[in-house]
């Protein structure tokens, strides 16, 4: 299984705690503006640069990204929530911005959630 190498670099701002994404040496607020790495070399180089900024961000790490019909989105639900905000308060976090890019991320999260029904449960 050789999935496409597709990653983004994320962190939280030290002073504010806000989720940010790496884009060509800058930190940007929206996942849609994040730089996508298709090769390990540049991705790791960006991580090294981020780690050298301990006064600007904390906890920099690469996340897996996937392409789908809706566009690109983080693979894990956790990372999609970081890119959006909490689902119990849709007015809070980055999702408050609205727009097509946010809608695409939200759709990606919808797609990943199971829609199975109780009656389909199988006993092991």
């Amino acid at each position, binding site marked *: 299984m050789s999935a496409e190498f597709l990653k983004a670099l994320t962190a939280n701002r030290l002073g504010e705690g806000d989720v940010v994404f790496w884009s060509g040496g800058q930190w940007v607020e929206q996942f849609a503006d994040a730089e996508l790495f298709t090769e390990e070399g540049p991705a790791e180089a960006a991580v090294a640069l981020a780690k050298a900024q301990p006064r600007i961000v904390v906890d920099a790490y690469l996340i897996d990204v996937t392409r789908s019909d809706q566009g690109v989105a983080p693979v894990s639900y956790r990372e999609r929530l970081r890119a959006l905000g909490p689902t119990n308060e849709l007015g809070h976090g980055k999702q408050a911005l609205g727009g097509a890019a946010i809608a695409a991320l939200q759709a990606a999260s919808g797609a990943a959630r199971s829609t*199975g029904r109780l009656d389909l449960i199988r006993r092991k």
Partner: protein
Amino acid sequence: MYRYDAIDKEFLTDRSNEFRHQVGRRLAGELSEDQFKPLRLMNGLYLQLHAYMLRVCIPYGTLNVAQVRRLAWIARTYDKGYGHFTTRQNIQFHWVKLRDAPDILDALAEVDLHAIQTSGNCIRNTTSDPRAGATAEEIDDPRVWSEAIRQWSTLHPEFSYLPRKFKIAVTASAKDRTAARVHDIGLALRQGRDGTLGFEVMVGGGMGRTPFIGQTIKEFLPATRLLSYLEAVLRVYNRAGRRDNIYKARIKILVSSLGAEEFGRQVEEEWAQIDAARADLPDTELARIRAAFIQPGLEVLPAVSDSYEAARGANPALARFARNNVSAHKAPGYAIVDVSLKAHDATPGDANSDQLEAIADLAERFSLGDIRVTHEQNLVLPHVKQSDLPALFEGLVAVGLATPNINLVSDIIACPGLDYCALANARAIPVAQSIAQRFLDADRAELVGELKIKISGCINACGHHHVGHIGILGVDKKGEEYYQLTLGGSGAEDASIGKILGPGLNADQVAPAVDRLVEVYLAERQGEERFLDTYRRIGMTPFKEAVYVDAH
């Protein structure tokens, strides 16, 4: 209620200044994140998914009006207008900036609040009975002892870098509202045959990935010897608790590996060597603390308020509220009122600034200015005149805080889960909401009666799922949220750890599964049995059959 004097206030100022200095050093790059993290954690500041989170300590769940107003102001000024009450009677703000944290701590200190030891491997806030000083059930006021523990444990030099976090609960009623048996130390006040006060000391309870019910290592510890005995327990733990593996570092692991008897023996041996005159609080200090908790302002009233009885008769909504959220006070003519933070579309434990301010106003008018936080993420107005209940009810209705569901199926504990928490596997809040939605019919919920559902978004068990009558644990199954149901847990005096029902369910299946569990209970129950009692009598099989009915 205990009031801070100049000494306590200066202490908080010093603490706040210290943290301001540390934040400054971090922002200036003088402290690395590795060095700073434990310092911010010791001031309750976590980095969560979307922002920093500040956990503010509410000592033994007791707040006054000015404090609640200040929390409302902080929520509005530094957060997004709400706070989240936790299972440890604290409040968390989920959208805080590190830069603002020192100002917030200053604002808290002005009303005698702080975030000391709300995280880190130290002695955390002591849990106590939210009905302390108001219920006739209690042997003594547990706040007296909780306050003694608060002072003793605050920046305790020997016990600030323990193997792991350490939580103490003090309960004084037969009915345990503190989950004492799932704390590192549970202290249950007992009356000796000679009338003296003592504690049953239970150690080694806890949840997380290896849940344990605490075991009694001392049946009757003379109450005045409390602090020296705690010192002995903590010292044995500090020396012998494991430090090589964070998952095995809690005292519960030490107690279970040594055996409670051997652990108790080591504590006794250590205790015998401690100089009581140095370690125990002098009687004068205990008397000083005790005096602070004598409740002034309670009037002599007739046992029954005619106006309240009439209002209840005329207003079915008030009558329902009274059945579920109002209970007896020790003083005739008074009542204890539970304020539910579990409206069906709300986030369990959340209160917004308007609601907090309304609660403060209502407490000022109707509850002698006293507000309590429960470990079940609700609030309590402990001293309400029965004759004021109709007006209080209207006031609560106006801000959406009159949900009549205390201890019912929709009174769900839920941790922040994947919506906020960096450690989560799955969300907890929407699951709680889906269950509450399913049991919207208040008559049916009352028919079902006491049913404690508790949801955690990961195995750390902040949502107490191990001790839910129905426990729900979020797990990550190949990137999808799944939920593991457990039955038969209890965090009360009849404490037990729940057992796994069967294969995990996805998010949409949880509420229907709960519904089926409830149907089995309703069909099987005898007499006054609660869900938990029926489960304990008939066992897992009928419940399991019902949920996995369509399996072949």
